[in-house]
């Protein structure tokens, strides 16, 4: 597992007040929203804000692309690494 995935999981737990969940409880490939971790649209906005602050990335909240990036921890890691490479 890439180190960045654990960093993302830590941001998810802290920014979304998931007090009873640890990094090990989150599967990197599992969907974050709906059936997976059970997060909702407010969580998506809150997580977007936290990730922007932590990794200094740019997000377009309206794009279909963003939805794909926010599918799982793994897809978020891909997206952040790609932004870091092109920055």
């Amino acid at each position, binding site marked *: 597992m890439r180190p960045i995935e654990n960093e993302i999981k830590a941001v998810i737990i802290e920014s*979304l*007040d*998931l*007090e*009873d*969940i640890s990094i090990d409880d989150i599967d990197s490939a599992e969907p974050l929203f709906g059936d997976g971790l*059970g997060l909702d649209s*407010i*969580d998506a*906005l*809150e997580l977007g*804000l936290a990730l*922007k602050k932590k990794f200094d990335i740019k997000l377009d909240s309206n794009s279909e692309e963003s939805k794909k990036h926010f599918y799982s921890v793994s897809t978020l890691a891909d997206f952040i690494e790609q932004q870091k490479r092109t920055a």
Partner: protein
Amino acid sequence: MSSYCWLSKDSLKHANYPSSTLKFFDLEDISLKQIPPIKRRRLNGLSKMAMHTSLSCLDKTNVAPEQVYTVFASQHGELSRTASIVNDIVNGDEVSPKDFSLSVHNSSLGLFSIFNKNKQFGTSIAAGSNTFGFALLESYNLLKRYPDETVLLTCFDLEVSQPFDSLQQRHDPSYSLSLLLSLDNTSGQEISFSFERSDKEGQADKPLAIEFFEFLQGDQSTALLQSADNNWEFTKNAL
């Protein structure tokens, strides 16, 4: 029909709350373990108190949380969340979407209705130092209109923190009072009340809700309670 009051342990440090008067209050930390963590994380200090006393009050009866009409009353509401949002704006930071979505006065009522799948009428009230009294009046209006229903009245406030505490004439500990009310006088205690405007500026020792709860638990049959600008009279009627 039923009453339940939670009071912050900080009340033990207040001169207005001698330990002898606290025996009817719940002073324990709030856990709300019956609510799944994924939902519970939406609750802050204020809505946790309101949810805790609402569910504890209902637990003492066999009235289901999804059935009750609700009146939630809070003088200051989501003051600390709103102050945090204003601070973020002043500092040029982006506002937390969660804070923004839960900063309205009826947040606690909304969360109660969502968590309990309650689709009945709900009202959120703020009325200064008369907040509890007018919430009781609103509950009475609801019961007169829907006489077969039961109203859950929850009156709650967090201790006002900096910088707004300097504007308070009296510093109250955090509290939440829940009452389950109905027109059915075959069970529980029957209470009547009246109020009138007072020209004399008054200042009670405690919030009206706390004084009412103490009256409810005590032996007195009548209580004359004063808010900043009203006199309230509560009477226990013999059944």
